[in-house]
C-alpha cells in the first residue's frame, strides 16, 4: 500500500462506516451520470414489458402500472463513480409483483430503456424483495435526469444496474452484457466486493 504523503482525509463519519462499501464516499447530493441526452417520453406512450423467455409476455400501461401494489423503499445507493447516498426514499413496484406467476427457464435479465441503454443482471438478483421499478423519489415523481418516469432500483448492486428510463426486462437463458458491461465495467457489480471493472 502506498501512503500518500500529506494526505489525512477529511470525511470520516465512523457512525456510517459500516454502511459505506470500500472506495466509496458519502454525499448528500444526488449526482447524475448518463451517457447521452435525457430521453423524454409521454406517459400516454409509456409501457413496462416483460418479454423474452416467457410463455406470455406482459405489458402494463402507465395507468395500469400505477394501479399495482406500491411500496415505499428506503435504501442506501452506491455509484461506481465512488459516491454513496444513504437512506434514499423511493416509491415503486416490486419486481416480485411484476414477475409473480411468470414461468421461465431464464436465469438472466437484460433491462432495456428509452435512449437505448441496457444492463444485465441475474434473474435471482431482481427477485426476493431486492429490486423495484421506481417512479417516485423523496415524495415526488422521479425527475427525468434521475431516470423518470421510471427506473430500475437494485440497490445491492452498483447503481448503473438501476437502469434509468427503464421500459422492461428481457428474460434470457444466456447472459448478455449490457451497455456499460460492454465497455469494461464489471458484469455483476457488487459494491461490497468492489467489483467496478472487469476483472475486479
Amino acid at each position, binding site marked *: 500500500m502506498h501512503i500518500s*504523503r500529506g*494526505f489525512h482525509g477529511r470525511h470520516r463519519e465512523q457512525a456510517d462506516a459500516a454502511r459505506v462499501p470500500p472506495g466509496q464516499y458519502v454525499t448528500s*447530493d444526488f*449526482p*447524475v451520470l448518463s451517457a*447521452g441526452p435525457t430521453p423524454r417520453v409521454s406517459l400516454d406512450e409509456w409501457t413496462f414489458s416483460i418479454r423474452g423467455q416467457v410463455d406470455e409476455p406482459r405489458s402494463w400501461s402507465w395507468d395500469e402500472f400505477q394501479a399495482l401494489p406500491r411500496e415505499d423503499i428506503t435504501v442506501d445507493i452506491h455509484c461506481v463513480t465512488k459516491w454513496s447516498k444513504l437512506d434514499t426514499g423511493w416509491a415503486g413496484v416490486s419486481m416480485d409483483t411484476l414477475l409473480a406467476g411468470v414461468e421461465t427457464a431464464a436465469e438472466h435479465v437484460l433491462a432495456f430503456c428509452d435512449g437505448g441503454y441496457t444492463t444485465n443482471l441475474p434473474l435471482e438478483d431482481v427477485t426476493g424483495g431486492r429490486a423495484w421499478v421506481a417512479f417516485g423519489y423523496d415524495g415526488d415523481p422521479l425527475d427525468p435526469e434521475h431516470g423518470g418516469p421510471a427506473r430500475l432500483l437494485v440497490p445491492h448492486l452498483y447503481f448503473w444496474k438501476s437502469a434509468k428510463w427503464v421500459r422492461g426486462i428481457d428474460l434470457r437463458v444466456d447472459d448478455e452484457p449490457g451497455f456499460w458491461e460492454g465497455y469494461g465495467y464489471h458484469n455483476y457489480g457488487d459494491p461490497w466486493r468492489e467489483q467496478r471493472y472487469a476483472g475486479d
Partner: protein
Amino acid sequence: MNWRLATVVELIGETDRTTSIVLTVPDWPGHRAGQHVDVRLTAEDGYQAQRSYSIASAPEDDVLVLTVERLDDGEVSSYLVGELRQGDELELRGPIGGYFVWEEALGGPLLLVGGGSGIVPLRAMIRHRFARRSAVPVRLLYSARSLDEVIYREELLAADGRGGVDVRFTLTREQPDGWNGYDRRIDGDLIAEVAWTPAERPIAYVCGPTAFVEVAADALVSLGHQAGRIRTERFGPTGR
C-alpha cells in the same frame, strides 16, 4: 484492473483552482481520448479515498496528464491541487470508460461542448486530432465564468483556425474589455449558432456540470440531432 504507482514529474497551474498533474506511469497500457482514471489516496492510518479524473493528454503524448479542479469541499481534489508536489507518487488505475471516447475512425465533424472543467476530456480529443493530423473538422464551444477561468487558454487560442478547428468561448460572468466572443450562459440559440446542422451529422461530445449538459444535449435533440450521436459526461449534483 491493477493499481499503478505514477510519478508526478510536473505540476502546471492552469487557473486559480485548476492544476494539470503531469505523470509518468510504469507500463501504462495506453488510452483513448476521452477516457478517465481512478486515483486513490491512502492516509498513514490506512484510510483511503478514490475519485475519477478525466485524462487531459492525447494517447500520443509521452506523459499522462490529469487536470484537476479543486472543489470547495473536495477531499481528494484539495489534496491534488495544493498538497501534491513534484516527485510525489500517485496511485491510479485505468484507463476507464469506452463510450465518451473519440478516435479518428469515428469520423466527424466533431462538435465539442464543454462547461468549466468539462473541457478536460475534450482537450484530449483535440490534441489527439492534431497528433493524428486528422482532417476531421472540429467546433468547440467552451463555457467558463471568466477568461481567467479558461483552462488551456493559450493552447486553445492557438488551435483556433488551425486546419479546420474552430474554437469559441462564452464567458458567463465577466468579460474582458473589447471581448467579442459570447457572453452568456449556454442556451438553445447559442447551441444552434455554433452546432453543425443535423444534415452534417456531427458527433457531439458534451461534458460539464449536470445542468449545463442537460441544456446542451436537450438543445441538440430539439435541433434534430440524433440522440445516439450525442455523447455526454456529467459531473456534480442536480441540486436536490
